């Protein structure tokens, strides 16, 4: 029976009784070599590719998190022909998984989305069904200018975030929001004992932005399993 894999955890971490994965299939442990286990379930005959399936996948991964164990989350939809194939594939990269489990233990991921400062300006600058080449190129130029402004403003606010919370962030990622509205998406890896201080730092940044950049919004999310730190 084909299986779906959800996350990699240390052997001591067992799924709670009754935990269901995609399609309602029971989650079980697959033991890989070298003290690694994978939480997996039988794959439904036809894996749904919708919001419910994404939430089911995430529900399993989130169940593996606690104060001591932080799982290595796997990307949605990874299937193997059977348990042995999954175990073999995991064992082949055992050093990588062990290193990640050690690095991530005691941490959670938090999202920081910096948006809002260019949405109004971006609303009217999509190159429309232009009536002339000149109009089309002018619209492209306006959109480019808005995007550049949004990116620069996002970078400025991201620097403010780092200055307020840099010491509380074990690792971070940053990428631009796609599209002309601009903005930045950051992911912070934060130790559990630093979470309250991190939140306080983010709220301080939000307060500062109300005066400094009232259109900007700093949207927080988490805690998440560390999806952004295992690639």
């Amino acid at each position, binding site marked *: 029976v084909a299986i779906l894999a959800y996350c990699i955890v240390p052997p001591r971490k067992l799924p709670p009784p009754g935990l269901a994965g995609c399609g309602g299939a029971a989650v079980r442990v697959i033991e890989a070599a070298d003290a690694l286990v994978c939480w997996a379930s039988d794959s439904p005959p036809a894996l749904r590719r919708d919001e419910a399936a994404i939430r089911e996948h995430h529900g399993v991964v989130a169940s593996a998190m606690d104060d001591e164990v932080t799982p290595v989350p*796997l*990307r949605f939809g990874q299937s193997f022909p059977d348990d042995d194939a999954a175990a073999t594939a995991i064992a082949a990269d055992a050093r990588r998984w062990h290193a990640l489990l050690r690095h991530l233990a005691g941490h959670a991921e938090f999202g920081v989305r910096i948006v809002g400062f260019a949405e109004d300006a971006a609303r009217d600058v999509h190159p429309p069904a232009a*009536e002339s*080449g000149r109009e*089309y190129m002018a619209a492209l130029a306006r959109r480019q200018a808005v995007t550049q402004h949004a990116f620069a403003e996002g970078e400025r606010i991201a620097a403010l975030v780092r200055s307020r919370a840099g010491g509380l962030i074990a690792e971070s990622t940053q990428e631009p929001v796609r599209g002309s509205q601009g903005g930045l998406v950051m992911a912070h890896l934060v130790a559990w004992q630093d979470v309250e201080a991190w939140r306080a730092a983010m709220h301080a940044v939000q307060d500062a932005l109300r005066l400094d950049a009232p259109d900007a919004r700093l949207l927080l*999310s988490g805690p998440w399993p560390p999806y952004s730190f295992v690639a």
Partner: protein
Amino acid sequence: MTEVTRTAEDQLSLTELVNRVLDKGAVISGDVVISVGGVDLIYLGLRLVVSSVESMREVTSAERLAQGPPRLPPRGEAGAGAGAGA
């Protein structure tokens, strides 16, 4: 298909979730069921624009490349209502 009304907060939460579950996370060496085309189908099903997903961007870029450069009206037809790219 039933339209689902979402609050902005719900939509943001879903965006954050989808970005992570589909676009991040470790890849072992199994068969990843969701391919680039699959991601596109998911988003059509969700009726959401989650433009920060890298895979979605790749789909869009590929479609644009396939379509070629935007079509502009021939000289002298500006203002005649012949929309470019139509």
